[in-house]
């Protein structure tokens, strides 16, 4: 298949960008985890694109790419497992999986509605 490597990279770039946006902007921790998985996938794509790009340069292929992808998948699985376990524990503690509604430091005794994160004095 003669798709230029650049296009593969573009695809992975989009996926990675989406993953970043989701990771940074969503408040639901499950969706954040899903975004992380998305980013990992895009990384795998890059690795494979690179491996494919230099295959046949000297008439050979390179196996580091697939091996590394294998490990990435493995680690992603482990990380997803742990993350989900954390979510369960978190949910037990706080009855919510909204990031930002549970502050580590108590600012004021009064509270606002659960779905709206408490106001921060400044936003970066």
């Amino acid at each position: 298949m003669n798709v230029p490597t650049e296009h593969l990279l573009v695809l992975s770039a989009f996926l990675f960008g989406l993953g970043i946006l989701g990771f940074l902007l969503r408040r639901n921790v499950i969706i954040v985890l899903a975004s992380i998985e998305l980013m990992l996938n895009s990384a795998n794509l890059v690795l494979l694109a690179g491996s494919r790009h230099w295959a046949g340069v000297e008439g050979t292929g390179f196996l580091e790419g697939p091996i590394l992808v294998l490990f990435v998948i493995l680690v992603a699985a482990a990380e997803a497992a742990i993350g989900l376990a954390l979510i369960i524990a978190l949910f037990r503690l706080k009855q919510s999986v909204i990031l930002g509604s549970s502050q580590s430091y108590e600012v004021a005794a009064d509270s606002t509605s659960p779905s709206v994160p408490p106001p921060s004095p400044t936003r970066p």
Partner: protein
Amino acid sequence: MAEVLFYLLAAGAVVFGVGVVAARMPIFSVLNLLGTFFCVAGVYLLTGFQFLAVTQLLVYAGAIMVLFLFVIMLLNLHDESLGGTLMSLTSLPPRTLALASATAGVFVLTLIFASGVGPPPGSAVLAAARIDEGLDQLVPLAEVLFTRYALPFEAASLLLLATMVGVIMLAKRDRPRAKGDTSASWPWTPAVDDGAEPVQQAETAPALEPGRSRKTHEGTAARPPADKPGERAGSVQ
């Protein structure tokens, strides 16, 4: 022909990706992620990495997604107030949005315009004669994996072991404790151990009171005895 398929799959992956990020409810997000996995697996196949395509489907779509779904269903996040938040770009403070966009943009642009130098000399090499049959053929892969990369392989197995142990410890449910039982519980220590009240309170109290949840990390002695989510785990089940 293959190219057309590639572009279709690519577009699909992106569309599903948007779905992951912009979904209203986590269940939708996860299902979109599943779609992304399938599209990406298809791309792997088209570019000649059959083994990895199958591995992707087995592990990602088959195991990780199942985990996600389990958890979603376990947490019973059907109630929108509990789990769903509509992602609306206007609800975000502009500075956050700008910064996030800039961050994403940097990576995107880097990837798009990146150029590499190639694998270092001495990398594992697939013999030229067999490239047409695929770029990740099993036998050569296994050869390299179990010889040169034996250490990472074993370490990975250790990692999985640790993960298993960790998951079990994290997700373990605390057993209800008798009154006066001051033995340490994990991962948190309740303030006052009063067996009678919590069950009562758990039924009547609203599901979420951020004031209480916020206080959780404070000195536990200050909390009213009703505030013991551990005791209320039963309601979550």
